[in-house]
């Protein structure tokens, strides 16, 4: 009964804040926009047939249409709309829930009722989250219908976005709650949560950039080592019976020296980069992993045909070019880049659910624990 009372109260509070309805309205518009995209025999129609773009790859009969359509959802609507815009709107809507709750004159009325403080705190936290879940659920129902009606795929995994986005939002909301309880100011809570979010983004971006360099150096070192081994094999095969052989030997030895020097340089760079990368990787390990949490949806909705809209947006056209994914031609720059990207992708996809969500929830639990401890002990 108490939980339902808190739930009803949270609904009325959010409902009174027009932003909740604005956010829901925009969500519906986004779904309608998504649903307006369809496939014809000759291409893609947009705006329920108002415009049509001819395409030999994306059309009603194409094997890539499914990946493209799902990719718009997981790559754009979730990554950009739900993970950024809707999250900002949700934070603005909910940032004042706890400051209002603990406001002097208001908290006395609630806390003096026959309900434990911890139960009250966590119930309030959960009902606040429920409204983000409600928003995402409505959004997902719309997307589910669009995907089903447009490409005939009734994919329940679309609803995986609900726990993923709610979990993602909860990392930020925990900080918002802690600051809101400490300062009793919704604006301060919102600002500090924003700073925290940007810090997370900076940590994740720094780690990704440094990881790219580290992986690149590792690929280079392997390439140079392989070059050294190949050169040594060739040197061993030379009989030194002619002047040509002597010249070839000198040339190979020169080449070998260059490989050794390059390898040494790459190793030094790797060592230097690792010094920077490892601490940031540790910080990331114990921080909420927003991007990776949202990225789970990409992993779970991956296209069996290998179509990856996010990869295409990053300039990786393998799915169009039919390039063998396992290829590692060490002689070209493109191949080196591709290998680096592939290894990073493999590493990213090898991260367990525990690493991505578990450690993030541990962080969230710590922050919430602090807030709950403060709420329990506080004299209001």
């Amino acid at each position, binding site marked *: 009964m108490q939980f339902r009372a808190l739930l009803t109260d949270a609904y*009325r509070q959010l409902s009174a804040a027009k932003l909740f309805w604005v956010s829901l309205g925009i969500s519906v518009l986004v779904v309608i926009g998504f649903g307006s995209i369809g496939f014809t025999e000759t291409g893609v129609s947009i705006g329920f047939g108002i415009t049509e773009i001819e395409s030999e790859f994306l059309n009603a009969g194409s094997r890539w249409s499914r990946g493209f359509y799902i990719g718009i959802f997981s790559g754009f609507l979730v990554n950009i709309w739900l993970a950024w815009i809707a999250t900002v709107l949700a934070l603005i809507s909910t940032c004042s829930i706890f400051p209002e709750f603990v406001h*002097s004159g208001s908290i006395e009325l609630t806390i003096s009722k*026959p309900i434990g403080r911890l139960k009250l705190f966590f119930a309030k936290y959960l009902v606040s989250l429920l409204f983000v879940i409600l928003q995402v659920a409505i959004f997902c129902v719309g997307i589910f219908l669009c995907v089903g009606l447009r490409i005939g795929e009734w994919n329940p995994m679309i609803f995986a976005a609900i726990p993923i986005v709610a979990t993602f939002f909860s990392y930020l909301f925990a900080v918002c709650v802690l600051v809101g309880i400490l300062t009793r100011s919704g604006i301060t809570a919102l600002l500090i949560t924003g700073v925290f979010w940007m810090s997370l983004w900076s940590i994740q971006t720094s780690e990704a950039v440094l990881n790219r360099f580290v992986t690149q150096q590792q690929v280079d070192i392997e390439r140079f080592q392989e070059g050294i081994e190949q050169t040594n094999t060739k040197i061993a095969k030379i009989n030194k019976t002619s002047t040509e052989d002597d010249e070839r030997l000198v040339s190979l030895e020169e080449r070998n020296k260059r490989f050794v020097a390059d390898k040494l340089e790459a190793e030094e760079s790797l060592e230097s980069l690792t010094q920077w990368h490892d601490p940031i990787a540790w910080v990331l390990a114990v921080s909420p992993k927003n991007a990776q949490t949202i990225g789970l949806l990409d992993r779970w909705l991956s296209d069996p045909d290998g179509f990856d809209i996010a990869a295409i947006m990053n300039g990786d056209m393998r799915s169009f070019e039919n390039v063998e994914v396992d290829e590692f031609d060490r002689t070209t720059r493109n191949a080196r880049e591709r290998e680096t990207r592939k290894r990073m992708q493999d590493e990213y996809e090898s991260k367990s659910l525990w690493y991505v969500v578990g450690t993030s929830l541990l962080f969230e639990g710590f922050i919430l624990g602090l807030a709950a401890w403060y709420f329990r002990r506080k004299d209001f």
Partner: protein
Amino acid sequence: MEAIQVQDVHKTYRGKVHALRGVSLDVMEGEIFGLLGPNGAGKSTLVKILMTVIHASNISGTMLGKLIGDRVTLRDVGYLPEHHRFPYYLTGNQVLHHYAAMSKIARATRTKRASSLLTRLGLHGWEHKKVGTYSKGMLQRLGIAQALMCDPKLLILDEPTDGVDPVGRREIRDLLAELRQEGRAVFLNSHLLSELEMVCDRVAIMVKGEVTMQGTIDSLTKDSKRYEIELKGSMPTWAKEACDTVQDNTMIVRSDDAEAIQPLLDRLRAEQTTIISVRPVRETLEDLFMRAVDNTDSPGAVQ
């Protein structure tokens, strides 16, 4: 039986501010008990401790027979905090339902009580209007209705008449008297002395975190009862010996017994002295309060 019985309540905030210094008091069932004191004396702190809003540094005692802090007991306690603030987005009816639901009152009971209390407190017709549109007095009435929603055995009201007009105050006084008739205990926290004097059975005066006086108003003012005899013309030469004090043309006899002044009146009449008036005078609650406060250096909490 005591509705509230606490001993040796201490509250020390960080920074060594002693808000309460060994407060002990009893509130009986079926009585209206008034706690008065200047601002910063610790009245609201004591009430908040009883309602588990503030943690005491030390406390022993019971409320409705259960240890202070027992959450289940709070179901039978109605509480109106000072400067309470209802969510602006709720209507009066929703406010009553929300807080009653938090007290685990069933929906059917809530609906019945809300309707009855809104009418009883003069808020009929306002139940579906947002509380943001209510006047201060209406919010106080709604606050009292909220406190009564759980059909409390004990009602704790912190400054209940704050912002209420004289008519509203009278209605609240009448309501409190009715609640007393119903056998409920009412704990009133107020600095409006005349209000308390009119309605309270017993009072306690708190100054600097300590209860300096406690009892019925009669017992507390008993020693101050006197008769003032105002005369016309010059004061008799024996006046100073026959009474306790002489002020201008008034003789003052300290006694709560009318028999004590009869010989004096007989003597005055025998001497043909014109008596303008004979007034039994008792110290008011305000006098009592001022005496309690004057006995201390400053009214606030102790650092």
